[in-house]
């Protein structure tokens, strides 16, 4: 390969990479982040963001989806704040025992206003058959 074509290839690669970098903006959510916003925003608080990557470093799926009974479908768990304070759903851990408690509103209610409930992160392959 001549030097000229090599330089040209390198230039093309840089352009392509830059194009991708630009196309990727705004950057997507981390894979498997879940937004819960059935009631939050209507009730005047930010939507809730639940991160799988953070929790799965600490708990296997079976803890939440088998022992604690979270259904494996975004939106399928009808979570009420009163239940959480009663020790259900997130409150099974966020009880000042396994993790910090339900009084730390902002840590859970940290979502961007206007988001729909559902799974985020870019690679999801949801289709019409699902719904």
């Amino acid at each position: 390969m001549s030097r000229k074509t090599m330089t040209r290839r390198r230039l093309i690669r840089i352009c392509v990479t830059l194009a991708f970098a630009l196309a990727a903006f705004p950057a997507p959510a981390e894979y498997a982040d879940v937004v819960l916003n059935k009631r939050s925003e209507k009730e005047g608080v930010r939507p809730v963001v639940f991160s799988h990557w953070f929790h799965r470093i600490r708990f296997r799926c079976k803890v939440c989806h088998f022992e604690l009974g979270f259904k494996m479908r975004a939106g399928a768990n009808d979570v009420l704040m009163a239940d959480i304070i009663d020790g259900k759903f997130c409150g099974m851990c966020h009880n000042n025992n396994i993790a910090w408690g339900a009084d730390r509103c902002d840590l859970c209610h940290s979502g961007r206003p206007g988001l729909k409930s559902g799974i985020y992160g870019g690679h999801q392959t949801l289709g019409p058959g699902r719904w």
Partner: protein
Amino acid sequence: MLSRALRLIAMLLLIADAVLAAEVVRRWAPLAQDGVHDPKSPALKLLQEPREALSALPPVAGGNQVDWVQAIEQGRINPRTNIFPETRVRLLESDVLLNLRGSTPIVRFPHRPHTLWLDCGNCHEHLFKSRAGANKLSMDAMLQGEQCGVCHGAVSFPLTECNRCHSVPRAKPAQGKAR
């Protein structure tokens, strides 16, 4: 003066190119720019950035860019298996080969990595009957978020990573229980 500046720019571009060409660079969006967190939320100063935790774990393409199976097998993480002491933690080692009559490489379904993370009850019997060959699987259904696609494409590595599932070449007669 000008030529020095030009040389500097060229050098920076070359360094950037070398880094990008290596193609092993993993990038995670900062929370403030990830599109789901409110950049104005006071929590952003307290929440952990994905890069901080995930860059220390074994790399793989797609999803969180972490090989979550190896992360456990290598002892890098040891997530809790149960909260209630009476819960039975079940592990199964057997593999099942799927898609024996197709054209793509055979799919090896390994129980070990799945049961490291999941309980039998997460799959049996509502997603898959626990009998080799008893399920009618289809790539199409998976792409719609059914069958393997309940998890793969949502939380576990995405369906774009074809050869992590289609991992057994057809030429060799493979071992294991067939369907």
